[in-house]
């Protein structure tokens, strides 16, 4: 079982997509049920993966290795360690929840679920692949479904947003391809195997490492997104339909940071060291700039989108710190951001479904009408602004703690980001929930059971890992310790 579990989680959505492809498009309910069942099976398998994962072993687990293209020494090589397991779990969880949230889709339902499931295959595959060629194939597999999902089911400027997302990401990924090829031909014997490349990494010269690091950085930075490569993000997030915004924010953005943890840092440690000043600088710019721009937004979805730029900056700061706590904190932030921002986009979707507006100034006093909604929105927003006891606080605290000794000035400025974040989050809560009730919404219905089901798991997770962070840290710490040793960082 352990050998095949990653393959199963990866390809069950594909199988589901193929089944749906051959169903008549009129059977809308059946297609939706099938989509939900497929993602649920993946969630169950993802939970099994989490349970069977041995966190004390920093080596790869659940490995499966099959020859794929023998002439180029390419393998179908899947495996997971502390860096991938939480991300795979996050992916299957968010995919399931967002699939439930897709229940409201009524345009071209069949195509939607086919593409949606295809996207899930790409995401899980990219988190599990240990062969760079395979990784790249899965990475690109996410691209085309996403183009359609934004372009067909999106908002008014969907076409622009879709092609912009597509071209930005494609540009990034072809540079990743260049980097991968350079690594392949530099390694001896030529290999795409990430683990072998890690062990050969110190043989690569400084200049070579630097160039490859830059090529990979471009690809990953666009995905994170790092300032100034972030301009696709507000368009894509705002125009995408709610479930897809959730997937984008909660899972897709993680691939950029995952790429640093999995590929750039362990394989090119010297270049990563040299890049620290830039990484730290871009992190700080992202945190402060993203927060300020978020504060200025009138569109609630755009505000959440820019808050992602700011929050992902903390991941970069953790990476720049080169300390164990920094790495752990950055990773914790990835997970926490996935949960919280996924939740925020779901909540924005709930509101939009009822009011058909996202203008922050058009709400007001909703807490009296929809108390359950108000409760969930408050928890998630507070988590996002870093209230102690919720997951956002833990990750930000760890990042600051990890970065403080090495990057004092950067840390001090970044702490300001928290203040600004608190500012725009509370301002948002105030404008939506508090104040006098806008008479237009006096009949606004409360959240229904389906919407609650999509949000409650996220609330629970953010509280649990906020109060008792070792649930997550226990999983990642041994692998991160191993990584810190490999890249020659500070063990603190």
């Amino acid at each position, binding site marked *: 079982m352990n050998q095949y579990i990653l393959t199963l989680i990866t390809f069950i959505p594909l199988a589901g997509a193929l089944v749906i492809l051959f169903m008549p498009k009129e059977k809308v309910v059946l297609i939706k049920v099938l989509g939900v069942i497929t993602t649920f099976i993946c969630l169950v398998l993802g939970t099994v993966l989490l349970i069977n994962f041995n966190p004390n072993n920093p080596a790869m687990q659940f490995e499966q290795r099959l020859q*794929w*293209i*023998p*002439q*180029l020494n390419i393998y179908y090589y899947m495996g997971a360690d502390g860096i991938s397991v939480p991300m795979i779990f996050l992916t299957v969880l968010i995919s399931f929840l967002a699939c439930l949230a897709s229940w409201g889709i009524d345009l*071209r339902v069949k*195509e939607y679920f086919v593409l949606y499931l295809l996207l899930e295959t790409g995401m899980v595959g990219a988190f599990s692949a240990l062969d760079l060629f395979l990784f*790249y*194939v899965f990475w*690109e*597999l996410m*691209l*085309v479904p996403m*183009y*359609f999902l934004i*372009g*067909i089911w999106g908002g008014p400027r*969907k*076409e622009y947003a*879709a*092609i912009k997302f*597509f*071209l930005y990401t*494609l*540009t990034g990924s*072809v*540079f990743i*391809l*260049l980097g991968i*090829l*350079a690594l*392949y*031909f530099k390694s001896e014997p030529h290999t795409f195997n990430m683990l072998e490349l890690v062990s050969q990494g110190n043989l690569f010269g400084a200049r070579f490492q630097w160039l490859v690091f830059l090529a990979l950085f471009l690809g990953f930075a666009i995905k994170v997104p790092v300032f100034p490569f972030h301009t696709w993000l507000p368009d894509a997030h705002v125009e995408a339909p709610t479930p897809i915004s959730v997937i984008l924010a909660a899972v897709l953005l993680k691939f950029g940071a995952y790429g640093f943890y999995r590929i750039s840092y362990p394989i090119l440690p010297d270049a990563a060291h040299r890049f620290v000043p830039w990484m730290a600088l871009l992190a700080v710019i992202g945190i402060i700039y993203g927060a300020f721009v978020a504060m200025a937004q009138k569109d609630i979805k755009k505000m959440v989108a820019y808050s992602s730029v700011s929050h992902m900056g903390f991941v970069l700061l953790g990476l720049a710190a080169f300390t164990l706590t920094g790495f752990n904190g950055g990773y914790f932030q990835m997970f926490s951001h996935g949960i919280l921002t996924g939740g925020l986009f779901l909540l924005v979707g709930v509101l939009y479904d009822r009011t058909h507006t996202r203008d922050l100034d058009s709400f007001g006093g909703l807490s009296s009408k929809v108390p359950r909604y108000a409760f969930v929105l408050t928890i998630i927003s507070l988590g996002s602004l870093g209230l102690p006891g919720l997951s956002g606080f833990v990750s930000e605290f760890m990042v600051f703690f990890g970065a403080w000794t090495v990057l004092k000035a950067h840390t001090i400025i970044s702490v300001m980001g928290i203040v600004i974040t608190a500012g725009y989050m509370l301002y948002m809560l105030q404008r939506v929930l508090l104040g006098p009730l806008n008479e237009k919404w006096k009949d606004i219905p409360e959240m229904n059971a389906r919407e609650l089901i999509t949000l409650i798991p996220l609330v629970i997770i953010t509280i649990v890992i906020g109060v008792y962070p070792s649930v997550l840290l226990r999983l990642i710490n041994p692998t991160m310790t191993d990584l810190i040793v490999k890249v020659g960082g500070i063990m603190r």
Partner: protein
Amino acid sequence: MNMTSSLIYILPEIIILTFALLAIIVEPFTKLKRLIGVLSLLVLTLALIVLVLSACRGAIGGSLFYGMLTLDPFSIFFRIISIITSGVVILLSIGYTPLHGDSEGEYYSILLFITIGMMLLVSSSNLLMIFLAIEYVSIASYILAGFMKKDPKSSEAALKYFLLGGLSSGVMLYGMSLLYGWTRSLDISEIYMALDSGSIPIPVIIISIAFLLAGFGFKLALVPFHMWTPDVYEGAPTPVAAFLSVGPKAAGFAVLVRVLLVGMGGDMQSHWVPILAGLSILTMIVGNIVAIAQQNIKRLIAYSSIAHSGYILLGLVISNRMGLEAILLYLLIYLFMNLGAFGVVIIVSNSIRSDEIKDYAGLSQRSPLLALSLAIFLVSLAGIPPTAGFLGKFYIFAACIEAGYAWLAVIAIINSIVAAYYYFKVVRMMYLVEPEEIGVIRGDVGSCMALFFTLALTIIIGIFPGPFVSLVERSIHILGM
């Protein structure tokens, strides 16, 4: 090998030739013109089987007809490609209504004749034979381009193709005569020895290479010799355009590779590599940039096919082992994806009588399978995994990186992003724009079979490339290199 003992090795060509001649004779006396098409398909299949069997039995090395033709894995690979191309094109032509009429039977015979021409061309190792084979293929192509006699666009295409083609042949012949005059040989291996001896002045070598490249550049639609391509593709019957974009191009690459690597390999490479690199960059950039503005899908594919020539040429610029493999693999993949894309265009134009991209609006709702097929072909042409097109691009980029030409890879990569943009313009039309008309578009049996075949291979090569890569690895052995 002498005449009679060589004959057995060109049995596939003889089979095709016999049938084509018979068809020409019988054609005026029969009403069942389409039957000739079906029979041609069977004959091509037979020829393919004979070819593959003889290759499997070890008939893969040696020169035929006193050195006029060469029998090596490289030529066998391209003969197979020629036959498959013609077969798919015939499948696509059978249901193409504008071709139906009195002369339909001739059309299939001419296609068969071209097939023979291409098969001879890819085996030629003698400048005279090369020239004759090129002219043979070209003249038949002119006829096919103008096959719809009543359509002024088709006639214009043929005339333009003929005039420019004639000019380029003349230029190429001049280059060949220069080489012959200085080296006193037409055989490319002997030319190599003469050139390598160092007795021939460098300017002469460079000038003859330039003239040769101008001729080949025309056949391969390399910029700046590409002017004919969009007009011919637009005016010619669509199956012919499909054929021209793949068949003669593959054959042209084969003979270019042979002439340059056998006849001017070794130290001589430094004379043509920079020229070729420049041509390749120019071809990619111009092809891709001009393609963005196209409103007609045939013109769009025409410019995209120019750009693809540029990528393939990179393989020859590198011309190490991986570069050669990249050329062969790319051409094999390009055959399926480009013919497939043309297949959808043929089916759509049969039904709505238009090749304008805007008329593809909402195709995904009118005809989901057709739209999905075209989308997969375009994704493959754009080089996005897990389709076959990615593998082709991957090999080209890999060859560049391996040889240390990272900057060439960067140029190619930037070009492939531009290409993705215009391919997705069509995808956008099909999926994101609502249809103006409703009504299902259906293809005929032949085109659907062709579509299924090309689609299956576009996906299979992308996901299980192993056997195809090993086929290519075995096929890069060129005699005399």
